[in-house]
Structure formats: C-alpha cells, structure tokens
C-alpha cells in the first residue's frame, strides 16, 4: 500500500519536534517495508496538538496528535490498519475546534504543500487572480470595497479606499509593500500564512499590483521569522517559474514581481512609515503623515502598504467572494479575522472566525481557559500596545469599534491569556520598558516618557508616594498618547492605563499585595 502522510513544517510545529517525528516515521516505514510519502505542509493552527500528523484515507485525512518521535511507529501501525490509537483525533476537518471556524483566509493553511503551485491551484488557488485579470482596475477596486475589508495589521483602515487612492495617483512607478513585520507578542497568523500558504500572499499582492498599476512589490519580513523567509522565497521562485510573477503575469500584459526584504530586529518597523524608511535602507524612524504612503510612500512613490492578512484575504474576495465575505461579521467589521490564542491557554492556536464572537467565548469555550488550570485573571488583546481586559469585559464582541469603545484595540488579533499569578503592575512596567527599548526616538514623549514611566512604576511598586506617582503615570500616558506620531508611543498607554484601571490593587508595595492575596 502507498501511504500519504502530512507533517507540518510550520515553525511552531518544528519547535515542538515535527522534524524528529518526520524522521522517525521514515525510519519506522523503512523498517516495516511500507511505501510512504511524507508531504510537509503548514500548520492547521491547532498548536496544542502539534506535532499533528495526518494520513490520507478514502474518508478524508485522519489526524493524530500531539505525536512524539517515540509514538511514530505505533501511529504508523494505526494508520496502516486504520485502527485505534490514543492519539487518534479522527477526521481532521471534523475536529470541532476546526469545524467551528470560518476559514476563508486560512482555508489552505495546513492542507497544501506550501512549495507547490500545482497544489495551490488544485485548492482554488489563483482563481482570484484569473478573475481579476478579466476585470480591470475599477472592477477590482469595487470588489475590494464591497467586501468591507479593513486593514488587518491593526489600524483597520478600509483597504478599498487605500487602493483607490494609489490607483488614482499618477506616477511613473508605484509599489506594493507587504508588512510582514509581525512583532506583536501573541500574534503568529502572518507567520503561519507565510509558512503554510505563501502563494495566497503572492496572489493578493499581484492583484493589488494590477488594481493600482504597480509592477514591483516588496515583502518586509522580520528576521525573527527565518522559516517564513525561506518559505516566501521558495514560493516566489515557484510562482516565477509557473509564470505567475514576472513580465507577463498569468499570460496577461501585466508585469509584476516580488522581492523579500529582511528586517533587523526593530519592533517599530512594523509601523508602516518606519517600515518604508527601513526598506529604503535607513534607520526605521517614523515619518509624519501626511503625506500618506498612498501618495508618497516607498522612495517617494505611491505605495499600497498592507498587512499579510489583508493581502491574504484578497484572493477569496476576487474569486467572486466579495459579497460572501461582507456577509460575515458585525457592524463595520466585515468578514473574518484569524484570531490568535496564546500565552497561558489550554488550546492555543489560530482560530479564524467572523467578527462578533465575544472575548469570553474565545478565551473560555475555544481556548479552554489556562493550561496551568488556574483562573484567568487578565487577557491582553492586540499585542504589546493592546489593553489588558479583566473577566468583567469578556462580553466584548470581537469588533474594531466595540474594543475602541472599551479603551482597547483588536490590533492584529492576538489574545494573550494570563492566570491569577500575574502581577499587573509588572506588566504595566514591561509595556513602558518595551516602549523604551523599541522607540525610534523621533517623538520626545515616547523616547523619554517611556523611561520615566518605568522609573515611576518602580516607585509605585516600592510603595513610594503611591497615589501621587499613579497620577504622574496617568499624566505621562496622556502626554504619550497625544504627543506621539505613531502607535508605539501613542498606544503604549493602553496596556498601562488598562492595568491601572482594572487591576488597581496591584499598584502598591509588593508585600502588602501578597498579604492581601493570602
């Protein structure tokens, strides 16, 4: 018999032993004399089950996980005999955690071979581009606008309007830039997509190029993502060979090509103007807006700059799915969001779902609470610049406006769960410390305010004039919020102020707090 086995090559799976499992499977198959092919896919995003491996059967792919190298031989037996095994999870698509999702952007992630254009095409890949080539610029822009897609990097700006601005600006050269500087802790959706379905990003960027009249694109990937860099470069080479990038995209008159550029460990380069500076080979210092990148972006040329997830949403929308996409969601948040559950969580991973699901459903039902088994005390939504929410706010629906109304933000869709052992004053201090480390230095409130913030929170934690120093922190936050050009200085107050507001009892001398907890 010929076994077709799927093992993830996603960094998250590799970090917990996927390569060792693949090797052990090869050895076990050799010993048993069974004909086996291993396909290295991306991850489905069920990280608590990684390494999760699947075998093709007439009923569909059957999954096992989490598998260790020591389990490989027995799992292989169970695969051959279609028999029982303690790690058997059943048909992968029927796993409730996966079935409950609405996978539009991440539909192929963990399913296909991320190095194969053929596999991508066999799973509806490049249908969006094929249709886009028949539509022309105006109709593409109309579809993107009709889908209601908003920038998935965090700012939530309508993608259709951004593209239209670039399309309407005349220039000899325009650029498409993909922001893959996914620096927010608790987020990994960009990494997962780039490693598991890189062609969807390439297709989305190519469609953007055709829509606005740009022939060159850059993907700026952070250096902390070596696997994603390899995956994107391999996919770009494959797309070129297949005629999907280069002089005549898909046999059309359009030319479009892509290049990967690697960041160098500066968090602030996730901010779009800082990223453009970095791409130009300079220090990642934030630019003042206006001019908008859509008018004067990379090298002073009109530039579409979007997040990985925004580009990855485009192929589905252009494949005739604009209305279907817009039908999901609530209010002004249309479509789906690949939400990332992380930190101290029982079932962590990527959960793509329509906007509107509540924070509580995500943390308790989907995530299953903490893996330490202790009560959830706080969750940080939206990365290091996102607010800490207590359980009292778990009824907040996942929606841009609903989070804003509660002094928070959804950002890039990461949720980091903390149990009751967390010291929220320490977390507030870390937010300030991180801002001090990563500030580009352009705006004084961010550059200096963050250091003063660390010092002042240290005084509070030492019990020094606590009410006065809390007032100083609040004042400082206000100055940073309104006196910084970008979200680094402007949003660092979110985690600090939310910690102060919802967890005030943690802000005082440490011994008193420990006694109170006893």
């Amino acid at each position, binding site marked *: 018999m010929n076994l077709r086995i799927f093992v993830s090559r996603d*960094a998250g799976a590799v970090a917990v032993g996927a390569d060792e499992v693949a090797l052990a499977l090869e050895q076990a198959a050799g010993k048993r004399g069974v004909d086996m092919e291993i396909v290295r896919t991306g991850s489905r995003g069920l990280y608590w089950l990684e390494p999760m491996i699947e075998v093709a059967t007439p009923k569909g792919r059957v999954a096992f996980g989490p598998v260790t190298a020591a389990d490989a031989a027995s799992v292989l037996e169970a695969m051959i005999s279609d028999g029982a095994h303690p790690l058997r999870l059943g048909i992968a698509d029927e796993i409730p955690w996966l079935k409950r999702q609405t996978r539009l952007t991440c539909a192929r992630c963990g399913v296909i071979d991320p190095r194969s254009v053929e596999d991508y095409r066999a799973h509806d890949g490049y249908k969006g581009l094929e249709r886009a080539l028949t539509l022309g610029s105006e109709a593409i822009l109309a579809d993107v606008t009709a889908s209601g897609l908003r920038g998935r990097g965090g700012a939530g700006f309508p993608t259709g309007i951004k593209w239209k601005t670039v399309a309407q600006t005349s220039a000899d050269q325009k650029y498409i830039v993909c922001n893959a500087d996914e620096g927010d802790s608790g*987020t990994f959706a960009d990494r997962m997509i780039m490693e598991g379905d890189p062609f969807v990003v390439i297709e989305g960027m190519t469609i953007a190029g055709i829509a606005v009249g740009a022939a060159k694109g850059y993907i700026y990937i952070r250096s902390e993502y070596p*696997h994603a860099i390899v995956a994107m470069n391999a996919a770009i080479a494959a797309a070129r060979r297949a005629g999907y990038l280069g002089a005549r995209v898909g046999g059309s008159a359009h030319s479009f090509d892509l290049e990967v550029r690697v960041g160098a460990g500066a968090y602030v380069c996730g901010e779009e103007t800082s990223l453009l500076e970095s791409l130009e*080979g*300079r220090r990642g210092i934030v630019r003042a807006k206006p001019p908008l990148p859509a008018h004067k972006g990379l090298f002073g040329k009109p530039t579409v700059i979007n997040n990985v997830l925004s580009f990855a949403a485009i192929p589905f929308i252009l494949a005739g799915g604009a209305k279907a996409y817009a039908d999901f969601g609530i209010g002004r948040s249309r479509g789906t969001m690949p939400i990332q559950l*992380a*930190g101290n969580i029982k079932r*962590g991973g990527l959960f793509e779902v329509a906007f509107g699901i509540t924070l509580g459903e995500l943390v308790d039902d989907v995530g299953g609470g903490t*893996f330490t088994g202790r009560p959830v005390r706080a969750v940080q939504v939206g990365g290091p610049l996102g607010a800490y929410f207590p359980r009292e706010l778990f009824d907040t629906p996942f929606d841009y406006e609903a989070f804003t109304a509660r002094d928070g933000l959804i950002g890039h869709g990461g949720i980091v769960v903390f149990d009751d052992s967390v010291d929220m004053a320490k977390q507030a201090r*870390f937010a300030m410390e991180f801002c001090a480390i990563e500030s580009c230095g352009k705006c004084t409130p961010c550059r200096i305010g963050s250091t003063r913030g660390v010092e002042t929170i240290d005084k509070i934690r030492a019990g020094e004039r606590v009410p006065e120093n809390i007032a100083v922190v609040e004042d400082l936050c206000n100055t940073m919020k309104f006196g910084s050009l970008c979200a680094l200085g402007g949003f660092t107050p979110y985690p600090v102020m939310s910690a102060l507001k919802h967890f005030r009892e943690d802000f005082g001398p440490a011994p008193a707090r420990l006694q109170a907890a006893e």
Partner: protein
Amino acid sequence: MPVYEPWDAARGAQIIAEHTTLEGATLVILHALQEAFGYVPEPAVPMIASALNLSRAEVYGVFTFYHDFRHQPAGRHVLKLCRAEACQAAGGDALAARAEAKLGIAIGNTTADERVTLEPIYCLGLCATAPSAMLDGRLVGRLDEARIDALVAEAQR
C-alpha cells in the same frame, strides 16, 4: 554551530559589490556581512558608505539603529530567549532567570569562556507553544525547566 570567516577587506568589498544595484541596499549589505563574518566589522562601514554614495554617519546610524547587527563576534553559540508577553504569561520569566543563573551571566551578555551569548528576543511567533527559545537558529517551544537546562547544557558544549 555557525562557522564564520575572519574579516577580510577584499571579501567584504566583494560582498558589498554583490548588492549595490539593489534599491535601498544598506540593510541587505549589513545582513550579508554579518552572515559571512558573524558581525559587522567596523572597517566595513566606510566601505558601504563609499559604495552606496552615502555618508559614513548615515551608514553608522543604520548599523546602530537595529538590534540585530553585532559590533563584535558573539559567543560560539547564541541562545535567544523570548521575553515578550505570551512567553511571560507561560512562565518565561522564571526560565530566563534559571538560564541566567546556570550560565552565570545576565541576558545580553556572553560567558567569559566565549562559549555562549544569551540574548533576549521579542517574539518568535511561537506564542501558542510558549515559552520559546532559539539556539543558533533552531527553534524550541514548550520550554520547561528540563528543556531549558538541556538547551543551556547543549550551548555550553
């Protein structure tokens, strides 16, 4: 363990020349030099400046802005521990302290025998299998005391 070439001006010039036609080449060149030599040797800075028609100050400014670029060679092994929120939530602080104690150095330093450089990293994107680390480019997730001890021991070999 990564193996690097000793600094050589001719080799440096060759690496720089390979990338000068790119748009905004400074970061690409700095990365390429570091990949070859393990750090960015100071004499390379004026060479980049002259190749790209920039001032030395501009190139030096870029070199020093980014956390990745090294001013001197690292230890034989580089152990990076994720210090961001998701790893903190999963007990990363205690494991970082444990690694510091085992190696006898604070994060951001190299052991006296130049075997191990211990560095912070702010997010490897392995937030659902936290806490995580990277040893010489190899990723390790779901760290616990036994795993961090094994990583430290491996780095010290």
